């Protein structure tokens, strides 16, 4: 179900692009800029009027220590799938590392609220299906802004569809609990980034362009696990 919803979003996104075409400056990486900017504005409004105020209140009410524990809890639940992606990319040592993290943190770390594995030298990794597809040779495809989820590409969007489909949170029942957990996870993440997003706003001349370029650079680097061949800037 969740996966299907995302595919529909992607389809709609593509349909929209076909009609609206690019924005003012035709960037070959972003052929659907006009449409993307529309979704971007929607996301910004949503953030301004709902996500940010909620995150601010959340930050005021809950102490940093508690928010870190909550972040750790969700981060731990993500580790098994990160491991799967490492296996799919042929990085077996990293995959074992991720599963060991999950095993240690779930037990000694009390359901993940303490990240004891990091202290013991098992480093946290950043992997998802978009990166796995990239590792397998898929290019990013056109840049896309997904509703609520933000920056993506055709490849990463399909990856995100799989990520969401396999997200352990989706199997939590009753539904009310599942929804509450998903909202808590998102709120915790947004609260973490309040300062960062304010600074981004200050640094950028055109936030849309700034964010897009950072996203594309970042994803390229992640696919190479930080060892991407340097793009020469002349």
């Amino acid at each position, binding site marked *: 179900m969740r996966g299907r919803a995302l595919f529909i979003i992607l389809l709609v996104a593509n349909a929209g692009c076909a009609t609206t075409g690019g924005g003012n400056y035709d960037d070959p990486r972003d052929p659907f800029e006009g449409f993307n900017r529309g979704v971007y504005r929607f996301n910004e409004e949503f953030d301004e009027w709902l996500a940010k105020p909620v995150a601010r209140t959340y930050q005021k009410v809950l102490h940093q220590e508690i928010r870190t524990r909550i972040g750790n809890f969700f981060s731990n639940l993500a580790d098994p799938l990160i491991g799967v992606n490492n296996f799919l990319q042929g990085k077996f040592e990293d995959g074992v590392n991720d599963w060991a993290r999950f095993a240690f943190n779930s037990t000694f770390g009390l359901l993940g609220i303490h990240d004891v594995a990091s202290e013991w030298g098992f480093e946290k990794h950043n992997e998802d299906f*978009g990166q796995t597809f990239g590792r397998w040779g898929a290019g990013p495809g056109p840049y896309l802004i997904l509703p609520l989820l933000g920056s993506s590409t055709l490849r990463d969007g399909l990856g995100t569809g799989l990520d969401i489909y396999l997200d352990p949170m989706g199997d939590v029942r009753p539904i009310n609990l599942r929804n509450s957990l998903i909202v808590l996870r998102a709120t915790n993440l947004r609260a973490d980034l309040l300062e960062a997003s304010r600074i981004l706003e200050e640094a950028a001349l055109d936030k849309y362009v700034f*964010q*897009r370029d950072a996203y594309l650079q970042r994803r390229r680097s992640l696919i190479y696990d930080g060892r991407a061949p340097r793009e020469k800037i002349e």
Partner: protein
Amino acid sequence: MMKSTVKAFVFALAALALAGARVDGFAQDVAPDALVKTVTLEVVELIAKDKEIRSGSRAKLVQVIEAKVLPHFNFNAMTALAMGQGWNKATPEQKKRLTEEFKTLLVRTYASALAAYSEQKFDFRPLRAKPADTDVTVNVRVLQPGAQPVTIDYSMEKTASGWKVYDVMVAGVSLVANYRTEFANTVRASGIDGLIGELQKKNRSLERADKQEQK
């Protein structure tokens, strides 16, 4: 995903801010990795000790950055790289003003980033370069609880006055490359003077916001 990019970017700025400290007569012959380490630790310590900065004084923080960090950056090279081909079309006067405005914007942003992230732990990686190299990359990692460490790669060039940073890549995002499209778009739409104007406008509005915050 977008959010983690945002975070990476902010780390980039914090990293930039932490990248330099003037130690007179010392910078000339010091190795680039040692320079990054000394300066980073020095600035972090300064921030931790300074009561004014800890209580939120932006002005004091900017002062520290200007004294400790700026001497180790080659803003001329950074602006030229961010401008790309447009740089050659600019007059000397335009180049000067562009560099000045870009520097102001970056310094102001470093200050914010620093204020947010000065309490992280750093892992300084050994330099992988030959002694004769004049263009090296210094790797540092910022360790954070419960998350993947953030990598910071300083691109540094050897000059007559010591090693100078000309780009910082944080979590794979090059700061200079990231301004390229924005700069190119603005230049295409309204020329080099248009870009200078945009940067000025941006800097002034940030200045106003600062003053309001202090009231």
